[in-house]
């Protein structure tokens, strides 16, 4: 099978665009061929992952320290990528699994409104958790790579604008401004904050504190995923029912 040779080549270019970051928007579907057993195991593992995300979200306050710690542990044990530092073959394999399994589950979960809602909710929570784990530089890299023109504000500019930032953004204190990133985003991408005047605007840019940039990115993620699921549904993911054991697999969810 072509598979092994291709895999070697891909690992050789670890600079392979698609897997150079541990987080992605899942914009491109996987193009490789995989075996049916890998197909099923990937799907099952991701389903476990999403159910874990759901359970941890129910038992802990989302985004609290406890929540993060628990997810850290569970995701590691399930062999999915979540932290950017690691490299090497195993990290690559995790990212590949992440990519492929996401798309497999799309097929299963695009078919009804309830399924779509559940899938989007867990994927968003997972995305938010993984985005928050990224180092500041990796966050900016991720945004740029995905064509989100969001720059971080320099320390000097932050100092100059500190009072204005505190007076405009909810939950922002002097310490937070100093210690955390603030992002500059074209105002058109932060309309909810603009409309309610909950953000500082200067020269057409909205200055978004760290804890709010993820909301903006998440909105983008949700929009993209919603659209994609609608398209998958139209195309007729149900055609795969018989062939891919998707029905059985869906059965396990309930």
């Amino acid at each position, binding site marked *: 099978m072509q598979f092994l040779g291709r895999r070697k080549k891909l690992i050789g270019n670890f600079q392979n665009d698609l897997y150079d970051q541990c987080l992605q928007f899942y914009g491109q579907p996987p193009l490789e061929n995989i075996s049916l057993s890998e197909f099923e195991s990937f799907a099952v593992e991701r389903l476990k992952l999403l159910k874990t995300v759901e359970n941890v979200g129910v038992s802990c306050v989302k985004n609290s320290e406890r929540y993060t710690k628990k997810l850290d542990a569970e995701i590691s044990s399930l062999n999915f990528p979540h932290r950017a530092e690691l490299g090497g073959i195993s990290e690559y394999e995790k990212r590949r699994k992440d990519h492929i399994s996401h798309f497999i589950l799309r097929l299963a979960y695009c078919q009804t409104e309830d399924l779509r809602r559940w899938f989007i909710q867990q994927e968003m929570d997972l995305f938010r958790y993984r985005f928050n784990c990224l180092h500041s530089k990796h966050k900016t890299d991720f945004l740029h790579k995905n064509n989100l023109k969001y720059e971080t504000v320099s320390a000097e500019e932050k100092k100059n604008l500190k009072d204005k930032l505190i*007076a405009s953004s909810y939950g922002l204190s002097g310490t937070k401004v100093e210690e955390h990133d603030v992002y500059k985003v074209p105002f058109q991408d932060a309309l909810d904050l603009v409309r309610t005047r909950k953000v500082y*605007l200067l020269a057409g840019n909205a200055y978004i504190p760290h804890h709010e940039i993820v909301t903006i990115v998440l909105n983008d993620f949700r929009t993209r995923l919603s659209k994609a699921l609608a398209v998958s549904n139209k195309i007729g993911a149900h055609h795969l029912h018989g062939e891919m054991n998707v029905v059985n697999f869906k059965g396990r969810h309930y």
Partner: protein
Amino acid sequence: MPTSDYDPACLPDLLPLYYRRLFPFSQYYRWLSYGGVSKNYFQNREFSFTLKDDIYVRYQSFTTQNELEKEMQKMVPYKVDIGAVYSHRPSQHNAVKSGSFQALEKELVFDIDMTDYDDVRRCCSAADICSKCWTLMIIAIRILDRALREDFGFHHLLWVYSGRRGVHCWVCDDAARKLSVAARSAVAEYLSLVKGGEETLRKVVLSDPIHPFINHSLSVVERYFQQYAIVEQDILGSKESVDKVLALLLTTHIKKDLTIYYQDEKNPMKRWDRLCALVEHKKSSIKKGGQYFDKEIMLQYCYPRLDVNVSKGVNHLLKSPFSVHPKTGRISVPIDLKELNTFDPFEVPTISLICEELERPRADEAEEDDVKDKENEQEAGERRRIRDYKRTSLAKYVKVFDRFLEAMARSWKGEMLKKSDLQKDF
């Protein structure tokens, strides 16, 4: 008295002259073509005309400046409105498959109408304005112009006197023209501070922390408030208007104190000072709320009142600059912000005045005609027209428009260079 008496009955005679010899078509076309950066931008623009007897026609569009001129001279519209740039020529919208004909772009616009301030101005009401309440327009322009430039980063703003009771703002930046409905509505909401209709007494509510935008706006209002509201509008003069102001204060003990104080103190300035002092004193007490009553009052009486619906819609039609106001005869002229303090809406020329100025004998221009007789008719006509408006009171307003266009033209040049670089045109 510089303004000739205007009589609406003369409009049918004056308008043809206006459109033939005074309307600045060349600058107008240059504006709406936006440097030719986008193909068919002018051709796909919707205009609407209100003709004699209130006949309203929409979906007018023109392929060239010449066609625009000929049609306007033929139809002689009483009012001209500008709409959006569509996906197809508006005049052919019926031929387009249903659903395909879409409004694509339009300037971001604001309409400030004096009637929206009727509950807080005592000098006039409805369609009337006077030099006292005109200050409200000055305040509105200063606040909105600053915010649109400094907060939103827009550069090309055209402020226009509507001809009767308000002002319009046309934000012409490329980014502004491409804004979605949601974005336009968000901008308008960001700029709105006075909320609520007749039933709402307290229309401005401030809470900590005060957003920098509100602080900027307050500093503009504060510059004008004492002279405008306390002196000219005399809001703390009569019992009736004092009651209106006190109704905005929720704290009973402040109201009580002031009512007693006002029994003896009749000087409005002192009355206002007392109100501010009491509110300031309350600020330092531990309980929250009411710390900004004085600022809220100032904003309620002075802050710009926008109609969000005008700004929201991409396909909304707004009165065109250089249109004539049929009731007052005044031309909708651009306002020079550098001379804003001295702008007088009652000095704005009427169509009767400028037509009359046109008929005055031409002293030093007779010789120029001989030199020009070699030109073709159209050029000669245009030259004549350029000379014509220059002889009237309209001239200085066309100059304001020219300067606005020059500033924009520099940005079009940049766009064209970018485009040709991308296409590798050298």
